[in-house]
Structures are given as C-alpha cells and as structure tokens.
C-alpha cells in the first residue's frame, strides 16, 4: 500500500489530523510529546502513518530518535508516496524549522511534500489571516490551511489528498539548489515574519492564566488542590454510578437464576458468574471517571505547567519535571506511562522514572482498593467534617504509592553510576497555549477506557472464576474447606499466615498475578461457595460477615500498592530498558517489599 506520512513539530495536531483521516483514536493531548511511537491507519487506498513530534532532525530524546530514524527509512522506501508536514499556524516560524528540514530532505530523495497549516481556527478566532497562496509560492510546495479540530478546510484537504499521493512526481518540492544551501533557521525566520501572525494577544491570554496557576505561592497550592481533587473524585463521583451498576448486576442475577431454579447451575451462575465476574464489572465507572479527569488535565495544557512546578522538587529525587506526566498517566495504566517516559531527554532520569512507574496505583488496583476500603472503613465517618474517610483513605493509598516511588528513586539516584554533566540532558520544555479540552477525543477515550478495562480483564477473570469454582465446589458436600481448592490452599497457607490472611486470600493474591482485578473475582467466587445464604448484593458485606482483621486488611491494601503483579508491565519494562535483568529484578524487589510491608502492618495494627 502507498504511504502518506504525517510529520511535524510536537503538539501541532498531527494525531488529531490522523484521527480525522483514518477514523482511529490515537491519543491527542495538549502537551509536547504525546505520541511516542509510529501508528498506522487507513485513508481510502492509502496507509497513513502518524509520527512522534520532533523539533529537529537532530534528536535529543528517545521518541525523537524513533521518529527521525523512521523518517529516514520512509525516505528510502519506495512505498512512501507523500510526506505531510504539519505546521502550527500560530507558531509558523518554529514549525517551519523542522518543516523546511524535512522539505529539503524530501527534495534530495525525490519525495513529494505538502504542508498543512493546522490550527487555522485559532488564527481566525483572533480575527487574523494568513496569506496561504503567498506562503505556497514561497515554500514551493502545496499548502492547505485547515483545522483538524474545528473541521475547517478539512474536507478540501481530504479531497485533494488522493490526487497528491497518486502523482508524487508532480509535488516534489519546487526549490532551487541554492535554497537548499540556505540556512533553514534564516529561511524560517523570514517566512515567519512575512506570513506568520502576531501572537501577542494569544500569549497575553496564556500569560494571564499562568499568572494565576504558576504564581509563586498560589501555584503550588493550586497544584496540590488539583491532585487532591483528582484522586478524591475518583472515589466520590464514581460511587453513585458504582452502586447503580452493582444493583443492576444484582437484578440481573435474580432474574436469570429465577429461570434456572435450585441446583448446580444456579450455584455456578451465582458464585462464578455474578459473584466473580459481576463483582468486577462494578468498578468500570471508577476507571471512566479517572480517565475523564486525567484527560481533562492533559488536554487543557496544564500538564506542562505541572511538570514545570514539579521539576525542582523532583530533581532532588533524581527525576525530571517531565517525569510528572508519565507518573500521572501511570495512575491509569503503567504500560503507556512507561512508553511515555521516552520523552525524558536524560537517559538516567528516564530509567529511574520507568523503574518507579509501577508503584503508581493503576486502575487495575482500583477494584481491590474500593472493595477493601468498603470492608474496613466505616462509610459515614468524615475527616475535618468535610472529607469522607473512605475517600481520604483512597487518597492515602495513592499517596503511599507516590511516596514509595520517591523513596525508590532516591535510592536509585545514589545507586546508579553517575554521568557527567554534559551527557545528562537538561530540562527544556515548551509551554503550550491553554485550550478548552476537545470533547470528541475525550469522550471517546473515556468510553474506550471502560471497554478496554472489561476486554482486558474480563476473560481472565471469567476463566479464573470458573476454575476456582470447579476446584472449590467439588467434591460436593464437603464445603470450600474440604474441596480440591481447599486442599491446595492449605499447602500455601503458611506463606500468608504472617500477614494475618487465610488461604482463601492467599489463593486470590496468587491468582491476581494474572491480572490484579482477579483478586475481586476470585474472592467473590470463594465466598460465594462458602456463604450459607446466596445473597449476591455486596461482596464487601460478605467479607465483613466473614471477618477480616483491620491490620491484615490494611496490610493487604499496601501489598497491592507495592507489588508488581502485572506480566505486561514486566514485558514493557524489559523492552524499554533493554534489560530483562532490570524488569525481573523489579518484579522480585517490589514483591518482597510488598510482603514485608504487609507483614509489618499486620504485626503493628493486628
């Protein structure tokens, strides 16, 4: 298939344009360095490729390195029909630096180039105009002014694209030999001055917001408030939704089992399906609320500011301000977060960041947290009269993960070999314009997070629940303790006894190495078999009735904060660090650490 590749400076809207062309849902957000990997999609008969953003052909960070090496590959690839250079119309000069570099390179390799002047809606909003024809003349390549967000000029571009890609020979940059010798910086400057807009109005507005959010005193407070709000709302906003889903699952169970009557089938449906898988589905709203809030932050432009605020404090721990962004997204899932660390220019800081991301409480832990908090913490208590104690505990668990990450970072900082000042890349970060979050990619992302959560974990939970149910239900009549599962369970019991947990928890913990959420399903299934009355509503109530010591419960929570129970994360760590020693070493380290923390907690609280 013929290829159309999308390149350009970071944050100029390549991925949003890619999504509009292909109908796919690449991550779009308002900070430089969102895309860190190539992504392909289809537009008509062409393959479209979205590239990570780069300031220059000369690379500083890993994501840029990937983009540039792939760019060179594409230039040599006969299938590459067209290179689309995306420019940010509000930052013409800066976008053109890389744009012109690409254009010259394309000329050398006889490749066709078109320029897309994106964000034209923002130019128009300030009542300004860009002389597209003049720019086209000056550049010697076609220019399309459009907005991938407001959809201005997009249809025209889509219409023209097939013709351009089908006749690449006619669109090889029309620039003379002398121009290619000219200094790109000088050329970009001249073009920027001639055709660019005066950005003072835009920057003034941005600066006004920054006066507030980056204020020396108030900025720090605002930062802390936003973080607290983020974690608190995962709890408060999602709760009513979760209750709703739980009630639905209960209703469904009642209806379905009324048809199956008494017996093995009903037992199976109640314990394994509704008790196991159903208990897990309840947590989908939490994942969606979390994604919504992280998405709002990412698309507003605040994250680059947060990185700036955090840079100095984080540097004491051997991290960079840029570490903040992967840390934050690590609260949704560690895997994309570890990849996002590619944007950290300093290799050493990048390594420390990647190694500590697994300590961020990802969404797979949410079901475990929510369940155990409901068991251990009374619902109606408040702290300082306003904050719900359950919510505060939630926040505390997040905080515990972050603190552990900082502790591990500072140890690494001293343990890893020092680098000299020169090879350690400094912190330079562009602050993007503030923007209202774009509802379309955001709502897609929120829905998708729920769907992915179910798709990824539900099959595993289903299988585990079914297996546990069979092993726990037979031989019939003897109860869970005397079942096959019970026999196996008693063998592993001594390992978990120091944590104050009986073998059922042991089995659930071991099973959750397949996926953390399995804990809830596995425990739900076992208690379902165990429970005398088949009352589906509320696994938490069942655990309370069954009895779980406070110390053991808190220890268990902390165990889940620290333990690296995720094979996929280990695999990504191995791929990104290039060393399986590091990946499996962390797996063992965090496992042992989690065990000792849980044990100590149980011994102290009891």
């Amino acid at each position, binding site marked *: 298939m013929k290829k159309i590749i999308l390149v350009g400076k970071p944050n100029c809207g390549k991925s949003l344009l890619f999504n509009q062309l292909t109908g796919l849902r690449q991550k779009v957000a308002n900070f430089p360095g969102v895309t860190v990997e190539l992504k392909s999609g289809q537009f008509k008969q062409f393959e479209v490729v979205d590239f990570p953003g780069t300031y220059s052909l000369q690379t500083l960070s890993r994501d840029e390195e990937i983009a540039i090496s792939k760019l060179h590959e594409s230039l040599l690839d006969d299938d590459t029909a067209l290179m689309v250079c995306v420019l940010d119309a509000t930052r013409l*000069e800066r976008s053109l630096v890389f744009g012109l570099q690409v254009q010259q390179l394309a000329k050398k390799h006889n490749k066709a180039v078109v320029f897309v002047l994106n964000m034209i809606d923002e130019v128009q909003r300030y009542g300004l105009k860009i002389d597209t024809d003049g720019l086209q003349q000056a550049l010697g390549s076609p220019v399309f002014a459009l907005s991938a967000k407001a959809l201005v000029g997009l249809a025209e571009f889509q219409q023209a694209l097939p013709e351009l890609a089908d006749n690449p020979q006619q669109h090889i940059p029309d620039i003379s030999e002398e121009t290619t010798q000219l200094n790109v910086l000088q050329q970009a400057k001249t073009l*920027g001055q001639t055709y660019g807009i005066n950005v003072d109005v835009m*920057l003034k507005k941005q600066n006004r917001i920054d006066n507030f959010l980056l204020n020396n005193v108030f900025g*720090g407070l605002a930062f802390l408030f936003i973080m607290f709000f983020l974690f608190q709302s995962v709890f408060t906003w999602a709760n009513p939704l979760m209750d709703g889903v739980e009630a639905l699952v209960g209703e469904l169970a009642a209806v379905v089992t009324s048809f199956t009557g008494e017996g093995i089938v009903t037992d199976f449906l109640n314990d394994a399906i509704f008790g196991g898988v159903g208990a897990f589905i309840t947590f989908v709203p939490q994942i969606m609320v979390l994604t919504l809030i992280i998405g709002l932050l990412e698309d507003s432009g605040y994250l680059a500011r947060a990185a*700036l605020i955090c840079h100095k404090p984080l540097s004491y721990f051997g991290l960079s301000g840029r570490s903040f962004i992967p840390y934050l997204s690590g609260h949704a899932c560690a895997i994309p977060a570890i990849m996002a660390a590619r944007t950290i220019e300093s290799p050493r800081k990048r390594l420390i960041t990647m190694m500590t991301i697994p300590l961020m409480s990802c969404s797979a832990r949410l079901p475990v947290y929510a369940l155990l908090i409901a068991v251990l913490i009374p619902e109606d208590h408040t702290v300082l009269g306003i904050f719900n104690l359950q919510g505060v505990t939630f926040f505390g668990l997040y905080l515990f993960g972050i603190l552990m990450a900082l502790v591990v970072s500072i140890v690494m900082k001293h343990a890893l070999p020092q680098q000299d000042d020169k090879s350690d890349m*400094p*912190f330079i970060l*562009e*602050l993007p314009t503030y923007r209202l979050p774009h509802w379309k990619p955001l709502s897609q992302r929120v829905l998708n997070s729920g769907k992915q959560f179910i798709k990824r974990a539900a099959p595993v939970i289903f299988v585990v629940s079914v297996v546990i149910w069979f092993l726990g239900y037979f031989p019939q009549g003897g109860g869970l303790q005397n079942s096959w599962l019970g026999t196996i369970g008693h063998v592993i019991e001594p390992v978990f006894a120091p944590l104050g947990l009986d073998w059922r928890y042991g089995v659930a913990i071991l099973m959750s190495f397949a996926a953390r959420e399995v804990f809830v399903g596995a425990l739900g299934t076992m208690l379902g078999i165990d429970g005398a009355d088949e009352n589906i509503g509320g696994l938490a109530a069942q655990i309370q009735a069954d009895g779980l010591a406070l110390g053991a419960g808190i220890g268990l929570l902390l165990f889940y904060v620290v333990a690296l129970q995720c094979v996929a994360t280990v695999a990504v760590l191995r791929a990104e660090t290039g060393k399986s020693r590091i990946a499996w070493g962390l797996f063992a380290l965090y496992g042992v650490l989690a065990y000792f923390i849980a044990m100590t907690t149980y011994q102290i609280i009891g």
Partner: protein
Amino acid sequence: MTLWDIKVKQIAQIHSLSSMLSSAVSQRLDEMGFNPGQNVICLRRSPLKGPVVVQIGDSVYSLEQNVANKIQLA
C-alpha cells in the same frame, strides 16, 4: 550576564550560547530560537531556583538552571 540572571518582565538580547553546552543541546536551542540578537522576555521565575520561563519569538519555554546559565545575554 546569563539567561539565569534575568528578572521577571525584563527584556534582553541573546548574545551567544556557551561552549560548555553539548552540541546537541546547543543546536536545539538554536532551532528553538535562541539565536544571537534575538529578544527574550522573562515571564516568570520559580521559587527554590526552579526553571525560568521565557518567551522567545512565538513560543514560551521553561529552562532549568544548568542550561539557562549557559546562555549569554548581551
């Protein structure tokens, strides 16, 4: 005077980039617009010697101390 010594709202002109910078960083700064003769405006300073925020041309950047103090101002 270097870019690290600039005060809030002060406007200055870039003089040169120190040879202490690695060539990769130096080239990047050049491409970001830190060219001799170019005007910079300091938008803000952060507490505890955190990064300085400057506007140069059409963009706003934050730079930490060990790079800002290697950019000489005229």
